[in-house]
Every structure is written in C-alpha cells, then in structure tokens.
C-alpha cells in the first residue's frame, strides 16, 4: 500500500490560550484550505444578533437618524442564542417581517438631557426584551477601567435634546453586513521550522552573531549568555520576513539558518467582539462548516448518484 497511501488525515486542535474574547490554538494535520475555511467561516458566517431595524420616535440629537441607526447596528449584542434562532427571512411565525420571538429581539432606548452636563447615551441605555440578548458588557470585573464601564457611547446629548427609539435586533451573518461578524480578528500562520547551522554559526564572532540576532525585527533568536551560542527563543515570533536569511546572505554565509513553513500546522488567533465567546466562536464555526458539508453530501435515496459519481458518490454518502 505504499504507492496508494491514504490521504485521510485526522486534524487535531490544541488549545494554548483561552479567554472570553481571545483564543489561541494550534491546528495540525490539515492543510491551508481547511484552515482558511475555518477562518472565513468565523469571520463571516457565524451568526450573531445585531440591531437591524430602528424606529425613531423622537430624535433631537445632533446626529441624524441614519447615523444613529448605523451606530446602534454596530453595538455588539450577546448572541449565544443566535445559533438556535431563525433568520427572519425564513421565519414561519412572522412571515419574515422579523418581529417575533423566534427571530428577533426588541430594544428600547429613551434618553433626555435635562441638566447642563453633557449626557452620554450609551449601549447601557438600550433595554432589551430578552435578557439573553443584551449589549455586550465590557466592564472589567475589577472595575479597573472606568470609561468602558459606561458602555459604548451612541450619542451625546445637551440640555433639551432627546432620543427615543425602538430597535429590533435580528440574526444575521457577517457576509451580509459587518455588524453581524462575531470576530474582530481571526488569523492564522504556518508554524515555522527553524534550523540553525551551529557549525557555521560558530565561525562567526560574537559581534557578528549579535548583528545576526538583531537583524530580525521580531525577537526570534538570542545569544546564550554562557555558551555564546545562538539559540531560538520564540520561533513563532518569526514573521516570514526573511530578514535573517538576507542577513546571512549579506554576511556571506548562506545556509546559516534554514527556515521553512510547516505546511500542515497552523497557529490560530481568534479575537471576538464579545458577541460570542471566542471558544464558542470556534465551535460554532466548525458546526457551520459541518452543515455546509452536509448540504454537499448527497442524499441517500439518489440512485443515479452511483452511476454518476461512482466511488466518490459512495464516499460522500458516508460509505
């Protein structure tokens, strides 16, 4: 079976760091297409809930209605429930006008400035009809950062100005509008493999070593204090900028280091907007990927599939 090796692989995920809005993990034994699909789904296809419809009753603020509506839409709402909600366009309960419990959440905002002090209207002033879907609370548990505790500023009011509105949040995906994207940043990089040719390295003076180490803008190498050997501190800090390779070339020592990207392992960084926890975001993304593949998978009762697709058909049917 040497010639016809099985290409089936079993990707593994190893979580390195996990916070509410931040996750870092390794994805191994797969290729760039899968990694990128995961990234793309996380950014643009994991559903969240965001304000989509704003009915303005009173607006005597300095910002006009569209501006306010746009700002409200960009406020992240906690969307753990989003996966189980319906898109309002295919909601049976409300014929797609998006005003029922299955597909929408209603918000109210009412603010009026009566004092001489400028009044900040923030996301905290949005009152939700559903306690599971509320503006994301950014305040630190320690109460450290005061300004963020007040929420996201929507508009500032002066004396006599008033804002009263009703907003409806709906489920949506980032593909339609960036406000529905749960990810602030999702990125991955190939894991670099760095080999130092220590033999050749020893032919350098200490100064030369130092300048070699300094040539990388990120801290990848280091000189050991005792042995004066160049060693790798953090291979993942390497940004594929090839500065060190160029430096080695310039020093007349090509092959001093060898760096190549491991084609099958990726280091993912996920930052969430707060709508969904970073860990949940990854899981949701995998779910959605699966659903997408399910749609591709041919249904069991298609007989012609065998003729048309042969073994592939059988494979896709899960055989």
């Amino acid at each position, binding site marked *: 079976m040497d010639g016809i090796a099985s290409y089936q692989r079993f990707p593994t995920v190893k979580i390195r760091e996990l916070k509410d809005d931040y996750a870092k993990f390794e994805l191994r034994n797969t290729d760039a297409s899968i990694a990128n699909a995961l990234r793309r789904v996380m950014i643009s296809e994991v559903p969240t809930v965001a304000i989509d419809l704003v009915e303005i009753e009173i607006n005597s603020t300095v910002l006009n209605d569209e501006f306010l509506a746009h700002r409200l839409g960009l406020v992240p709402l906690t969307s753990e429930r989003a996966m189980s909600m319906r898109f309002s366009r295919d909601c049976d309960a409300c014929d797609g006008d998006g005003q029922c419990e299955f597909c929408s959440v209603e918000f109210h905002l009412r603010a009026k400035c009566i004092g001489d002090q400028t009044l900040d209207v923030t996301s905290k002033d949005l009152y939700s009809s559903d306690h599971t879907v509320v503006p994301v609370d950014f305040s630190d548990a320690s109460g450290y950062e005061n300004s963020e505790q007040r929420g996201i500023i929507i508009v500032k009011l002066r004396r006599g100005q008033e804002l009263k509105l009703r907003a409806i949040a709906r489920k949506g995906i*980032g593909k339609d509008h960036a406000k529905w994207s749960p990810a602030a940043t999702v*990125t991955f990089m190939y894991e670099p493999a760095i080999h130092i040719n220590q033999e050749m390295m020893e032919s350098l003076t200490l100064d030369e070593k130092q300048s070699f180490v300094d040539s990388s803008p990120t801290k990848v190498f280091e000189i050991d204090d005792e042995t004066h050997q160049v060693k790798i501190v953090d291979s993942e800090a390497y*940004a594929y900028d090839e500065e060190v390779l160029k430096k080695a070339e310039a020093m007349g020592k090509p092959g001093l280091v060898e760096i190549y990207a491991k084609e099958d392992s990726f280091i993912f*960084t996920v930052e969430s907007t707060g709508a969904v926890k970073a860990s949940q975001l990854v899981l949701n993304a995998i779910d959605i990927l699966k659903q997408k593949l399910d749609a591709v998978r041919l249904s069991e009762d298609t007989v012609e599939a065998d003729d048309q697709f042969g073994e592939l058909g059988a494979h896709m049917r899960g055989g």
Partner: protein
Amino acid sequence: MSSKKVPPHRTANPDFSALKEMVHHHIQSFDYMIDFGLETMVKKIKPIEVFEPVLNKKLRIWLGSPEVYAPQKDSGKTNAATLYPFECRQARFSYDGKLMMDVFFQYDGGTAIREKTHFGQLPIMLMSNKCTLRNADPKKLVSLKEEASEAGGYFILNGLERVVRLLILQKRNYPMSMVRSSFRDRREGHTDKAVVIRCVREDQSAVTVKLYYLSNGSARLGFWALGKEYMLPVGLVLKALADTTDQEIYVSLTCCYNEKYERVKGSVGTQLVGERVKIILDEVRDLSLITHKQCLQHIGKHFKQIMRGMDNESHSVVGDAVLRDYILVHLDDNRDKFNLLIFMLQKLFSLVDQTSVPDNPDALQNQEVLLPGHLITIYLKEKLEEWLLKAAKELRDVINSDKKNFEFMKIHDVKKILQRSSSKLIGTAIDSMLKTGRLVTRISIDLPQNAGMTVQADRLNLLRFLSHFRAVHRGASVAGLRTTSVRKLLPESWGFICPVHTPDGEPCGLLNHMTSCCRITSFYDSGGNLKDFFKMRKSILTILIGVGMIPSWPRLVKSALPEVFSVLLDGCVVGTISSNIVEKAVTHLRRLKLSANSMIPDDLEVGYVPLSIGGTYPGLYLFTCPSRFVRPTKNLLPPSTESNNIELIGPFEQVYMEIQCPDGGDGGRKDLGPATHEEIHPTGILSMVANLTPWSDHNQSPRNMYQCQMGKQTMGFASQALNCRADQKLYHLQTPQTPLVRTGTYEKYGIDEFPLGTNAIVAVLAYSGYDMEDAMVLNKSSVDRGMCHGHIYQTESIDLADKRKADRKTQMFKRDGKSSKSLIDSDGLPHVGQTIRPDEPYCNIYDADTSRTRSQKLKGTEPAIVDYVAVDVKNKKHLQKVNIRFRRQRNPVIGDKFSSRHGQKGVCSQLWQDVDMPFSGVTGMRPDLIINPHAFPSRMTIAMLLESMAAKGGCLHGKFVDATPFSGSLKKTDEKKASESDTLVDELGSKLTALGFNYHGVEVLYSGVYGTELTCEIFIGPVYYQRLRHMVSDKYQVRSRGRVDPLTRQPVQGRKLGGGIRFGEMERDSLLAHGAAYLLHDRLHLSSDHHIADVCSICGSILTTSVAQPQKRIVREIAGIPPGRDPKKVACVACKTSKGMETVAMPYVFRYLAAELASMNIKLTLQLKNEAGA
C-alpha cells in the same frame, strides 16, 4: 524631522487668527471704503451745474458725507432690529446696509442746502466694520448660527455667498516700457514701442496713459476718454504742463546722454536723443504754438466736446481740466507731471535705443491686485457720476420744456426731477454687480474686464472655500490669448504666488493662488490705524534728502544716469540721488523700515534697480501705495539680538535683492556678495492648500498640483453650523478623521475643525485585477462599519409670494386631503425625518384662485430624507416662504472616486468582504483598500510611500508625525540631530523595526481566498484618503425608451431629462470595424428615430402621401374579430392614387431632410426596387 506631540483634543478656545489672516485683505479694503474711501471718492466727483436762463440763476449740485448703515431688518423703519447673516442665508436675501448721502444744492454761490438722500442698499461684507459679527468671539459667533471660525470677507446676495475675485492689474504709478505689435496699428507712423503708466487717483479710479514712440522720432501721449483713444503730441503736453522754455525741455531730456559715458554700465542715452527732442519741439512749433498759454488753449479747444459740463468755460480752463482729469492723474501738481513725463520720455528713448529692455507685463514685478473695496468704490463713483449727469440733463430738459408745475428755485421740485431716475437704483447697481460679476458701464473705468468680477464662494470644504479668497486671476482678456507666455511660472513670483497651486487645463497659470505668507498692503498699518500717506511721503523725502538726495525742486543740476539715479516716490519724480550713495540710502531705508517708531511704513517697497548694460531701466522706485503684494523675510543686517528683523518685501524690489535660504549655504551666490535677507521658512513659497500635502518635496511636482485640485473637491466637514445652513448643495462626510501624518500648516490653520478624510489601511498589491488602471478595491466590511460614509444636503426654497401682487396671497401651503397623507403633514409641508422617494410629493400648495392643489415632487432617482423644514415666521398667518432641506445618504458604492493626498485618485471597482482581503498572519490586519503597485513607478509619488510608513510607525507609537516639506533645508542648529538622522526613510524605518515591523514597511500577507502566503511581501500601512465629490449616483445615465426630440424624433440629450448618451461617429466606426451590423442597426436606427414612411413609388416622394379617410370599421367589430390593424389607406396626393404606395423603414431625420429640402424647392425622390434576397 521630528514627530511632534500634538494634543489629541483641540484646545478649549481655538484661535483662528491664522485662518482670519487669509481673508484679511478683503476685509481691510472694504473697511477702508466704508470709513474713508467713500468720502474721498465723493469729494472727487465733479459737481453739476444747471443754468436757468429766465431767472439767470445757476444751480450747483454735488454730493457729500456718505454714510453706510449696518444691516437692518425692514430698513424703512427707524429703530429696526439688526439683520444677521444667517437670516440672509436662510431667507435668501442680501446682507446689505443703507447708503445715505447728502445732496447739496446751491444757487449762485449762496448757502448750500443739504438734503439727506437714500442711495439704496449697499451689500456689506461679512466681518467688515459694518457687520454685526465683527469682533464677535467664537462663542458669540456660534450663538449667531455661524461657524466658530467664521472669517468673513464675502458678501451674501440673495442668500448666496459671493467673493470678489482678485484681479491682477498693472502696477500703479510706475512707467512701464512695453513692446507690442498692436501699438503699430494704432495710427500711421506708430511703432511697437511705448511707455505705459497706470495712474491711480486717491479714490482708486485709474487712467492709463501711454507714451507712444513714432517712427519719425517723436512721441505721442495717448489716453482714453469716453471710449475713444486720443493722442497728443508730447511736446504740446510738456509745454502745456509747465511754463518752460524749449531750452529747458531740451536740456532735461538730453542730459541723459553724455559722450563720456558711452557704452558704460548704466548709460541709457544715445546721440539720437537730441535729434528726437528737436523733432518733438518742432512739431509744436509747426502748430504755431509757442507759449504755455497757447498750448493749453489748443488742448482746450479740441477737447471741449468731451469735457462734460464745461461748454461755457474758456479754452485754457478746459485745457487745464483735461490735464487734471486725464493726464498723469495720480499727481496733482503740473510741475510733477512735467518731471514724470520727462522721465517717461527718457525711458522710452532708452527702450528705442535698446539701452534698456522692456518691462514684462506678465511678471509679478509689474503687477498689483484689485481689491473688493476698491472695485466697489470705482464702480460706485461711476454710477454716482452717471446719476448726477442724468439728473443735470433732466433738469435742463425740464427748464427748456417750460413745465408749469416746476419751479427752479424750489428745492422740492428739483429733487423730484433728480429722483426721476431713482437714487436707490445706485445701491441696486452695486448689488447686481456683485451678484452677477458684470460691470455695466457706458464709459470704460480702466479695468481689464467687465464680467466675472465675482465668484460664488463654494463651501464644499474649507480648502475650497478659503482658496476663493487667496486666488488671483490674470483676467478674462488674457485667458483668450493663444500664447502660453502669460501662463508661465516666472521667477519673479517666488514667494508670492504658489508654484504648485494652479489648476491644470484651461485656466492653468492664469488662476493662481497667493502663498500662505503673502499679504496685500492696505490703507491700514499693522496696528490697524489708517496710514497717513502725505506724512509718510514727507518723512521719506526728508530721510532721502538727509542721505543725500537732491530734490527735483528747485532744479539745480541737469545730470542723469549713470551719474545719478532718478528717485520716484509713488510715481512722482522727487529728486535724484548720486549713484555712489544710492546703495547706502537703500540700506538706510531698509533699516528704518524695521524700526517701529520711524514714520517709514513697514511695507514700503524700495525698488532699487541697479545699473546694468541693457537691463531694466535703472532708478530708485519707492512705493507706499495699497494693493501691492508683500511677504515677510528676515533682514540679516540688524544684529540678531534685535527682536524685530522681519521685513516686508514686495515683488518689485525682490528681484534685485539677495535673499538666501535658511539652509546655511550660500545658494550659489559665491562672489555676488553676501545675502542681505533670509527666507523665514521654505514652506513660505507654497499656498495653504499646497502646504497641506505631506512631504510634498518628495513628490513629482505635477502630483502636488493634482492634489491641490483634488483637495478642493473632497467631501469633508463643510460646515459646523450645518443645521443652520440652507445651501443649495452641501457635501458632508459622516465620520472624518484627523490625518496621522500632517504638516505644520495643518495645526496652524486648525484644519481639524473641518477634517477632510479617513486614515485607511492601504495595501499596495495587484490582487485579482480589479485594481487595474487606478481602480481600487474597498473592504466592504470597513465600509459597513462606516468608512467614508457621507451625506448630501440639498435645500429646496419655495417662495409663494407673487412679486406682482404683493398684497394678495392666493397661494398657500395646505394638504390636499387624500392622496399624500403619509408624506405630508396637515400644514402642507413634509414631516421631518420622512423618507421621500422619487416622484413622490413633498409639499402641497393650494391656489385660492383656481382652488386647486398642486404638489412639488421630488426629482432625481434616489430617495431623500427630509432633514429640516424652515419657515418664514415674519408672516405668521400666511406662510409664504419655506426652506426644505433634504438629506441623501451617499455611502461608498462601486464607481465612487477616492484619492490620497498625493494626486493618486482612483475609482472603487469592487467592494469586497473582509474575508476576501489579504490578511497579515501576525496581526490579522486586513486592508481597507487595495491599490495597484503600477500607480507608483511612473508617477513617482514617493511621499505617499513615506506617508504610509510614517503613519504606521506613528500609530504604533501613538504619535502624530510631522511631515512638513523642506524641513531638511532648515539650518541644523543642534549637532546631534544633524549627525543622527541621515535620511527620512532611515528615521521612519527604524521606528518600524523598533516595534518588530519590517524596516521598509512591508509585511507578509496571506491570501484571503486561499489562505496561502502571498509570494512577495506587501507594502501596507495607513494612508489618509479623501473621498472626492464625484459620485456615480450623480452621473450614471440609463435609458431604454424615453423622451425624444419633437423635430427629429431622436433621443434628447442630458441626464436630467432622461436622455441618451451620444453614440458618435467614432463609436460607429468601431462597430463597423467589428462587422457588428445588427448592433449598429439597433443603435443607430431602431433605438433612435426608427420610422416607417409611406413612399409613393410612382413619383418617388415621401412627402406627398396622405392617409385616406378611415373607412367604417363597425362591421368588423360586430363580427367579434378584434379590430386588428387595418391596412391603412394611404394615397399620394400628387399622383392622386394609392396604387404605388410602399412602406419603407428609414430614420425620421431623413423625412425631415426631405421636408427641409422641399422648403428650398429641391425635390427628393426615392426609387424603390424590390430585388429578391437583397
């Protein structure tokens, strides 16, 4: 270069003095006009005299004590409320104040009776001393619904803001030698050479006098009067001006020639001068005029018809008047005029003998500028004179016609006659001049053009608005010239006119902009006090005499160049100064210019033209007059400890001065002697707009020009008082940002108050081909999040008041009840916040006469939101005037135009999702915008690359980066700095490496689509991008069927009418070349004027066919068969038969052609053939 720490928030009380300085010259000139100019002007208006033969009484009428009132509401009432500019803008009327003047009547030298008369409404410049906003602090301004930074300088006419265009004029009171082939055609015997002087009176009105050289060696003095040019032999004028002898004239003219100095540096005279003077004197003798008196009478005799109102005066009095009113009018004394004429003759002869070169009228050296106050004064004078003369004519007519109800001795009756042409029309004339920019004059008032004197001050953004005040135009007459020499950038304009800020295309080089430090002299000194020109000139004279000048009066020596220099002070020959001491005198004068307590004004122009061989005619020309260009430089002569070493210099003197750059070098001066002056900062040569381009010294120069254009077309923050404005169209950027990389100018003028763009993360790569040819890919997600969102505000003004029937109000706003309840409120006006789609009504107007309701419908193709409805509350019962402001959302779409600050414009070609954009593996950063790398090599906008790197470093360090151009050419004061930073790139690069980024600003990106690493590193960083106002939504044009021209039945033209785009000849050619016959037929025939014509095959005519009476069709309809197309019974009228009728498809214009030809008795016939298969 150093990154400067700028406070992130603007200061609590921002100082807009730098901004106000930009428009200062407009306001100063208007202030002077109000305070003193009108008074001086009115004094110069000649009184009219009317003689009544029966009573033998003479009535003298003149004007005096003009007074302008601050703008008021209902100026008729006594204590009316102040009128505020914002009210004028909203209600669409003019910001003007009452102009009152005294009309004096005097019978036969008796006591004068004064009558206060209303001369109409004079438009008031904003921020002038009659404006209510003057001296208001920002807080007050805001409370008056103005910008906090309002600088004024413009007029509000019918709600529109207009600025007087600064026109370039010939420098006043300086005799300029000129060579023009058109002079030759003036009259027989003229050559192409002349000396021209534009003489300006105290009241700013000017008379240009030309001294032509004749081929016989003589000269003629030409001047324009009542639209005709008159020529006088110069000898005649000389003799008429002064009671001298031929000997004196001969000596004073020939003194410039001395054998001893032939071919010596600075000698201007030749032997020929003597011959010419003889000819000049002989000419006068040939007219048998010997004495001063005779000459004067001769002139008087010939000019009697022209001089109005002097019919009964003696010849010599008329002659005197001619000299006073037309010849060298800037001087009062005839002796001064004589001296100046002698000087001009000498200069003319020198020009003829080629011992001096002609002056270049296109050089800034010989130019000055027309200021709004002066223009209005001149025009007002002309109108007042006209009015008086008309009044005199009316009076004489009445006296002659023997009207019964008119008594000459009754002032009341005289006044009635005077008001036959209402005095209030004078204010209206000024108003309409400013409104239209057209001067309506019968006689020329010595201005280069009489149209386009004002322009609308467009508030698209701050840069465009301010540029209107700084723009100087060469004039419409020059624009028509074929030659390009006038458009050239001349070295004379260094420091005064920005070399970068001029439009490309038609007005290139004609519409220039003043540099940021350039100012214009005025009647006020730096302290704001009125200059006393008489005193100033006197003290200059005393100083000059103290230095060693020999005054021209009394005349002692007859010597000339190169021994002595003539000294001209404001166009008056005040004396001569020996060439040995002239330089010392100049230095002395410059020292005194600096000291505050001397009587020498700080903007005195000391034009010292040194001796040369065949150069400019030498002399010492001093100017104190207003409307000259000046700019500050550092004088190096006083010890640096002295605080005040800033000297204002003009373009005339600059040419002969030694000014060094502050880089510490000698500027290639070597043995020319040390520099006496130093530039303050190299950015002083750039205009304010050009100064905003970061590191413009690293760009190819045309790119900086393009940026100056595009900066003025940018959507930005047009106004902070947006809610109080009623502009017809206002562009507004929703979320603008302050640039990360900015020049010193940016903070100086507080552009943060009116920001113009967004810091966008720009990646430079060819990604997918949607960025070819200056297209750019925008990140849709960034746009979703609000990047470059904008609005357009449009105001519809509806005024129901019928001007003809002022008291009757037949129209009113009223909802018509049924149709449009959802859109229109009960008062007939729209709800605020209501979205209105195209062709939906937004207001109902009820007409009481016809008892019908009509509604205004929204034009255009995109919906609008009602932003604001302003009503005129003056008339509460009958609402007549309404402003409805619409808001249209304009978020970026494919086809919108964007540009960086380096002349790199592009059109959005795709809006791509975040996930499709390339991303950085390390930071996860996705660009907002992708441009193609091909945008750089040929355009060489290096500064854009620098900006990207600097902004990246700056935002990583949390600092703004200073990108002032030419900062490398400043003197390096501290040694450390000089040694440390060798190049700008080094400095920017090291900032990036300090934070782990690549030195060159590149990053490794991964394809967003495939997830694979891109093969090369990508240059990426933040660049400040401007959104330009050209948007597809305003430009796209679509048509399938629609309106056609009634005559040709072809589609109409124009986007507004839903017309088509011309499919022209070249387009046709390309289809022919492709052999796309069907498409060609479709475009040119079927989609255009397809027509099926009936042709008579017997006579071949298409015009003689007519439809026969339709037959009764009832039979068929009863039968139940649908009334299908009846075969039309067509007959030829000429052949009287329908036998040979055929139908032929043809363009309708062909039929039209046949009809046109028939009208010319040409018959067009068709021969029809039916070839099978053809």
